[in-house]
């Protein structure tokens, strides 16, 4: 149980620190680290419940989310090769503050939820909901296309953690399908980022303002 708590604190710290770093390369590395933590939690869960499926899922988490997705994102970044800093609607301090507020919201809402049959601490569930919310916050406040994509992956990571805690992972095929979907979505995000850079000479989504009403 202690290892679970240590790993989930790791998840929380990586998520919050994503709001802090200014360089996109660093953000991608943090995302990879977060996915590794998530993979270890899946291994811990597999050992505890004795489900062999979960080992496969854990391996896939590390392979797809820890190595594959960061590689795709880094590759895109290298191809466009300019403006490697993030840009946001709100400043660094304000977004950290908002992240903290979302964490509180997550704790309050999950503590009211009564789920019979769940035997892991509520705090960990709160962290999964907080990851979901902070991912959403990143998608809304970041202006750089790649960072919005990273927000989407953070959301997915939060959902994956929630599924592990509440249901010991989804049915096997469902989990595989979810991995496939998120991987293709990231490839598409990278492709669009590249095209955006070609057409607008920038990956700032402020340029996407033509379609109105």
């Amino acid at each position, binding site marked *: 149980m202690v290892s679970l708590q240590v790993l989930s604190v790791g998840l929380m710290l990586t998520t919050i620190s994503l709001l802090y770093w200014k360089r996109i390369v660093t953000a991608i590395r943090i995302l990879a680290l977060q996915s590794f933590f998530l993979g270890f939690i899946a291994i811990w869960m597999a050992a505890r419940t004795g489900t062999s499926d979960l080992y496969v899922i854990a391996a896939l988490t590390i392979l797809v989310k820890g190595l594959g997705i960061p590689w795709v994102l880094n590759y895109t970044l290298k191809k466009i090769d300019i403006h490697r800093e993030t840009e946001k609607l709100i400043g660094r301090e304000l977004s950290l503050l908002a992240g903290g507020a979302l964490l509180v919201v997550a704790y309050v809402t999950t503590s009211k939820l009564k789920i019979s049959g769940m035997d892991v601490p509520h705090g960990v569930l709160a962290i999964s909901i907080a990851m979901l919310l902070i991912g959403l916050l990143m998608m809304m406040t970041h202006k750089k296309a790649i960072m919005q994509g990273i927000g989407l992956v953070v959301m997915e990571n939060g959902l994956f953690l929630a599924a592990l805690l509440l249901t010991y992972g989804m049915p096997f095929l*469902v989990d595989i399908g979810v991995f496939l979907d998120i991987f*293709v979505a990231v490839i598409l995000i990278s*492709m669009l980022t590249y095209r955006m850079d070609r057409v607008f000479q920038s990956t700032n989504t402020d340029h*996407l303002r*033509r379609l109105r009403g």
Partner: protein
Amino acid sequence: MNLVDLWVPSVVLLPIVVGLTCVFLPWRRALEVVHLVGVTMTCVLLLWLVSHVVQAGAMTTDHLFFHVDALSAVLLLILALVGWTAGLHSIGYIRREWSEKALNMRQIRAYYALYHGFFATMIFVVVVNNLGLLWVGMEATTVVSAFLVAIYHKAEAIEATWKYLLLCSAGIALALLGVILLYASSIVRLGVRSQGLDWTVLSNPNLHLQPQLVLLSFAFILVGFGTKVGLAPMHFWLPDAHSQAPSPISALLSGALLNCAMFALIRFAVVAEDTLSGHWVQHLLIGFGLLSVFVAFPFLLVQRDFKRMLAFSTVEHMGIIAVAMGIGGPLGYSAALFQMFNHSMGKSMLFLGAGNVVQQYRTKQMGRMVGVLRRMPFTGVVLLIGLLTVTGVPPFSVFTSEFTIFVAGFQNRDILPTIVLMALIALVFAAMLYHLLRMVFGEHERVKSPELPLSRWSTWPLLLPMVLVVTMGVYAPQSFSELIQHASDILARIPS
């Protein structure tokens, strides 16, 4: 091993095989032939499956992987008709784009390959039994169709695709949380089993799930799949994606994809309704539905872009269907499904007709599309009948289904929502009629350059939906009414 175990998977696999074949074909003619044969075979298989369900009832494959009941059959029928019409129209549309150098060979190959991939994901959503895999299929439709929306490398297309992908992925991530909560609730009752998310298990009305969890789960599902259906206020991606996609794809998005999302929403709604006391599900559906119709009206009125106007009309119709699903009861559900069918036929024919007009006039602005009836008589008639249909003018089929929705509303004593709905539909009718009269009639400007005639591929396929909307308003075949009846029995929990 019987026939069904091969049949249902083959309906999903065939378009995938055809799509993969398209990737490797270097010649445009060969692509067209493979596409034509593939799309026709898929649709014949689908219709065969539908007729089998009409005669023999629901069927389930080995290991309960696929489950095709009357509700899926209604959706499969819509998919087959829209998919085939848009598929044939694609040939004419793409030839024209090719001759005007708007698309190159690589893009054309990607178009045909993804068309079948998109078709396969939609069929998968409708026939799969596990509600978790249904979620996977739904997200797959987003990813595949986003590639199709982005097929033109223009600034507007990139913007539309970006909004579509991010909004729908974020929305559908929330729906995944709903699925997880539902699964958690089912585990408490049934223990950890891989069937815990199967529709065949969860649709049992005597399964007592935890109401608190199910309510929370349904709230996330409604927001998540509601984004994909295009319910207000989550509809912002819809007009952009519909207006920027190639016209046959707009027809597929509006006529097929949104119905699949509505189908997913309704599957979960039935499970939630069994568990929750009170009328939570009904009130939520009616509320979101009315809001969608209400939001669509002002945008319809001020719209200048023809395809955007059609997209807002789609938002309106999805709202009407949601209200009808919320009213419920045997009559409400069957009216909702009939409305779904009619809207798909009417709207797909409008988007395809719009594609012809846009290619001929080289603009999407309605202000410059005057006198369509004189310049392109066939397409003009299609637009005229299509617009009269979707605004609910008798004797066309949408009138019949909307009228039934009102009757169901009064019968179920949802008096106020029904009156509001009637008023809003009347307003939308006025707004669309205003655009229609200017566009279809009126003198067209003299054409400066000699223009290419439209290919027959772009016109003749539109006859199919046109005949259906005209005849279905006055006469529906016996087997079709039976199918709708069986499907609404599933939703109204009447054991057959």
